[in-house]
């Protein structure tokens, strides 16, 4: 009887909610703004943020003060890119703004757009100017035009490895192709506020490409395992012959003082791969604290578009010991010969110890090429 009553009540509430939804529910359905007024700069910015969150690109574009300077397509390409990239499959999660300056007729704000991507939060910061018109406050969108590529043919000396694995037709004694030989050339455990971290570098000492990952098991003083963790995405998974990737493994529940030894397991697998695209990392610069970071630009030197780029930085002290490993995903596609900036944040307490760095980039190109 209770079950029937609950089921009936649920149906009644669903019908009521559908026919007479509350305003907040309408907003989440993307039908309506919670705030429609643009009587203040804050309200106008909030409206823009709501439109972007609900992917209402046309409405967001229509409310811009400077929309005659560019097309809606330009605006959309500025937000999510013209070529498939990390942002293509993301959604605006959070829209923050902070006032810089305001008068009766105009205002300046810093806007932070937090995009929820498959690899986490991607933040883009813009400075926007606002003007007060006859119909209220409007945003002048600071459009960044995405570079376009003129139609052309870029010759590529294409280098690729393909693998023939052991097949069902092979006789019993036929051995499969060996996995690539990889070696951990450096490893260091450190204690951080968020737990123990193991970082190091892995070398592909073979002549074939390797898909790699590293797993570590930490043991206590009695040689009993405490925890096992993997490098997950804090590694460049595909490394070509003689290439070195950094790795970082987090043990959030472990303290370094508990650890007696560490058992490292580098894993490698022979995979088909391409040597292209070649990515140059230029204008790398270590910026000191506050806001310590490694900045630079990645440039695709090949003809193939790299849709997603992952930049990994390895930081060393004066003696050449690893101090930290950090990464950043570039949320724009890398077009040939077009620099794209990156910023890798460095923990403030480590920044003063760092005297050199090495950066590697791994890329993913949609359409099959690794």
């Amino acid at each position, binding site marked *: 009887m209770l079950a029937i009553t609950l089921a009936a009540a649920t149906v009644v509430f669903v019908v009521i909610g559908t026919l007479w939804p509350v305003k907040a529910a309408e907003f989440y359905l993307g039908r309506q703004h919670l705030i429609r007024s643009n009587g203040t700069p804050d309200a106008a910015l909030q409206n823009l943020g709501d439109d972007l969150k609900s992917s209402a690109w046309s409405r967001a574009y229509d409310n811009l003060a400077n929309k005659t300077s560019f097309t809606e397509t330009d605006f959309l390409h500025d937000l999510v890119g013209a070529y498939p990239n990390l942002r293509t499959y993301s959604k605006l999660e959070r829209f923050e703004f902070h006032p810089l300056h305001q008068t009766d007729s105009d205002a300046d704000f810093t806007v932070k757009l937090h995009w929820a991507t498959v690899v986490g939060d991607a933040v883009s910061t813009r400075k926007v100017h606002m003007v007060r018109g006859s119909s209220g406050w409007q945003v002048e969108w600071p459009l960044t035009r995405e570079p376009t590529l003129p139609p052309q043919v870029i010759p590529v000396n294409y280098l690729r490895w393909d693998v023939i694995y052991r097949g069902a037709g092979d006789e019993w004694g036929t051995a499969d192709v060996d996995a690539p030989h990889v070696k951990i050339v450096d490893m260091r455990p450190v204690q951080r506020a968020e737990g123990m971290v193991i970082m190091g570098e892995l070398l592909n000492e073979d*002549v074939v490409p390797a898909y790699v990952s590293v797993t570590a098991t930490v043991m206590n003083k009695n040689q009993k395992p405490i925890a096992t963790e993997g490098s997950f995405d804090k590694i460049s998974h595909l490394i070509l012959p003689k290439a*070195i990737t950094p790795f970082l493994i987090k043990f959030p529940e472990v303290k370094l003082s508990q650890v007696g030894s560490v058992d490292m397991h580098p894993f490698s697998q022979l995979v088909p791969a391409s040597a292209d695209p070649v990515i140059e990392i230029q204008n790398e610069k270590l910026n000191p604290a506050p806001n310590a970071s490694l900045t630079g630009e990645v440039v695709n030197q090949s003809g193939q578009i790299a849709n997603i780029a992952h930049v990994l930085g390895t930081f060393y002290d004066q003696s050449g010991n690893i101090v930290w490993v950090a990464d950043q995903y570039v949320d724009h596609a890398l077009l040939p010969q077009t620099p794209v900036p990156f910023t890798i944040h460095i923990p403030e307490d480590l920044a003063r110890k760092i005297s050199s760095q090495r950066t590697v980039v791994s890329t993913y190109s949609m359409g099959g090429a690794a």
Partner: protein
Amino acid sequence: MRTGYAALLGGVMLAAAPMLGAQALTAPKTVEAGSSFSIESRGSGQATLYIVGLGGVVTRDVQLGSPISIAEGTVFNAGHYIAYVSTSPNEVATFDVVPAKVADISFLARPSRLPVGLRNGITGAVYVFDAYQNLVTTPTPVSFNISTPNAAPENRTAQAKNGAAWIALDSSPKEGAAHFVARAGGVSAVRVIQQVPGDPCGIKMSAKPNGKRITLQTDPVRDCSGNAVPDGTIVTFTENYHGGQSTVDVPLKRGVAQVEMPAIPGANITVASGVVLGNEIRWGK
């Protein structure tokens, strides 16, 4: 199910064989696997002959008092067998089926890929079988031959003991796909071992101006034995200048690595591959 019963019966009979009495049958002491042979029988009349081994049971209606012919390919699993007839189940003959001549080999060669000039780096193991996949346990000579393009072939012979022979060989100082052949009793098997160059030895790069860029190019990259390091090997160019840095990981193509980097006066440019460092260039002002 029938096979299960037959195997069970065979096992029981083999275990009981020493306890059984005088023989109504006389079998050869040993029989080569799969060959024809005959069993002498005494007495008269019709009976069923049972030949029981670990692998199963062969039954045949026979006329007692005359030789019983067992056709080629009837008994082929190597091992100990008993034979008896239904009229005298307690009178058994025993014989052993031994492997026939070598007809097949299983060749395990490791690794599939290794650096040049590695001592005892290549291992080969051969298991010798007859046509019925019985392990040939009699000592059998097995020859191993490894040949690499542009290098003298190497021959070795090993004696198979209890059906297995193995060998360890050095990899050649010359790179290339080595054909590793094992041969026994006229049967051979081939495996390909890829002998690959070692680490680059002394990377040397040169630089020339190219507008606002510098073109950097290595000499052909070779290992310490003079083998060309394979294309695709990553060479890292690093340019340090006034607190800034540019880096490019370039794969070798046609033996050399080439890249363009910013031409910054006073920049220091280094080249490396893996853990091997090359020369250094200071770009003039």
